């Protein structure tokens, strides 16, 4: 399997003290990789650094072999990377449809953008019913769907997903996890999934990376993480 995302010696943080310490990572194309760890382990910072919102002080990120150093955030969508930030990242004042169109904004071909939009509505039926509702009128689950939908309209190859289960009912979380699996199998989407909810993340992930205090302490198959009792106790708390 070819490698879609490669992270080499990534050190990044806010201000003087780095949050991430020389993180190495490799995600094969068409797989779901779960990033696990306790609060403050650097999971969100890892995603933010990958998508360029935080500048690394050392190391580099390669997407499909292409280094992303110095590529501005807004250009990464063009390269096939979409980031759904923690706390949804939905534009509250815009309607559902406008938010989704935002995702396809950079696409010059209007017909293609419309097709992508229709596909997202097919995936998320509740959104199709609320096209004209403003972002702030949506429920938490709908907002998460919208954030995901907006990322998917851009037809990414790599999806960075930060805590999709945050504040959602277990049933909705399960739906989102099932959807990720479906997208991986059907379209070959690669997902880097940050989750507090270890069980639900490992239920769909192919591989897992465990971060502790900004360092990678384990990177292995998801089933091995599930089975390795020692690791689970030490870092994942169950």
């Amino acid at each position, binding site marked *: 399997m070819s490698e879609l995302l490669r992270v080499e010696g990534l050190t990044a943080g806010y201000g003087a003290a780095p949050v991430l310490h020389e993180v190495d990572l490799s995600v094969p194309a068409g797989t779901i990789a779960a990033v696990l760890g306790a609060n403050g382990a650097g999971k969100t910072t890892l995603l933010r650094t990958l*998508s360029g*919102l935080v500048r690394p002080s050392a190391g580099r990120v390669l997407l499909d072999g292409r280094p992303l150093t110095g590529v*501005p*955030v*807004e*250009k*990464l*969508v*063009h390269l096939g990377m*979409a*980031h*759904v*930030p923690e706390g949804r*990242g*939905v*534009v*509250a*004042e*815009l309607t559902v449809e*406008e938010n989704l*169109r*935002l*995702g396809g*904004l*950079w696409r010059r071909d*209007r017909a293609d953008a*419309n097709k992508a939009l229709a596909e997202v509505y097919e995936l998320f039926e509740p959104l199709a019913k609320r096209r004209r509702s403003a972002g702030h009128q949506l429920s938490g689950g709908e907002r998460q769907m919208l954030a995901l939908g*907006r*990322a998917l309209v*851009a037809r990414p190859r790599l999806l960075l997903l930060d805590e999709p289960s945050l504040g959602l009912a277990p049933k909705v979380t399960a739906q989102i996890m099932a959807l990720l699996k479906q997208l991986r199998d059907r379209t070959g989407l690669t997902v880097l999934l940050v989750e507090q909810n270890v069980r639900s993340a490992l239920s769909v992930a192919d591989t897992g990376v465990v971060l502790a205090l900004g360092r990678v302490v384990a990177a292995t198959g998801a089933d091995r993480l599930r089975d390795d009792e020692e690791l689970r106790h030490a870092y994942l708390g169950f």
Partner: protein
Amino acid sequence: MNLLRSATLLRHLALTLLAGFALYLLSLELDPFRNFQLATVAAYLCATAGLTVLTGLSGQLSLGHGALMAVGAYTVALCQNTLAEHDVTGNGVLPLSLLAGVLVTMAAGFVIGLAAARLRGPYLAGVTLAVAVAVPAATVTFDELFNSEQGLGVYVEPPPLSLGPYFPNERWQAWIALLGALLTMLLLANLVRGRFGRTLRAVRDDEVAARLSGIDVARAQVQAFVVSAAGAGLGGGLLAVLAQSVSPGAFSLTLSLFLLMAVVIGGLGSLSGAVWGALLLVALPDLAHQVSSGLVASSPAAAQRLEGNLPLLVFGLTLIVVMIAMPGGVQGLLHRVTGWARRRLPSR
């Protein structure tokens, strides 16, 4: 979808033509003074419409739009006078000068926008404030070109003879200004409805989400400034044509503040709100004049002082009341009233 888009375009076009026709009829009825006021409203509308797109949609505060109007006004004045000196006359000259005014102001807007895209909130307000103060001062510094505080006269052709020998000049001015305002409204309405408007609102509400969606935030902010400056430039140019003169006093910091207040009171971010704002800009000083002239008998000196400051006072008070009672401005209030009426009617 394409059908829908062209439907919006057609609707805007039909509305513009309809408004144009109604205003044409109105201009035939009004006396010269009212026609001149109508023309002034139209000129201000170009500027308020541009400002509401900038401050309302892209969320960038500008305290310097009065100065941008001055850029447009002085460009038009210099163009008109230079062309007249070289015996270039005719009806095609004025549109050309106005276009030059718009283009030069857009260039100025681009430069301010470049700075603005790096600044937020109070810092942006500070920079635009500096522009509002610096531009009128520049006319004094370069007094050979701009003739200092005296300002410049603007050569404007009289109405074409084909309209008859006794055609009132004010009606002709109203037509010119209204044409400019309608064109501005049509262009802005289409721009705001589409991709551009959506991009600006996304940038205003959530910069991170906008960037993650692939929007170049800085670029969108500069574009907003350029578009907005175009409106201000045209508005300023029209004012110069109406007054047949330009002077720094006409484009003081007070004008910049008035423009912003007018846009907020009218309804921030809405083009219809910009119309209310432009009306207020003309109506309030007139009202203040009437109030203070009522006081002339008792004390002329007090009346004179009052007339200068009354509009500012009234504007300030209105702004406070609007902010507390109807944050959506006049347009927001109308929206609520019509919504309420619509809910009421079918139930009967």
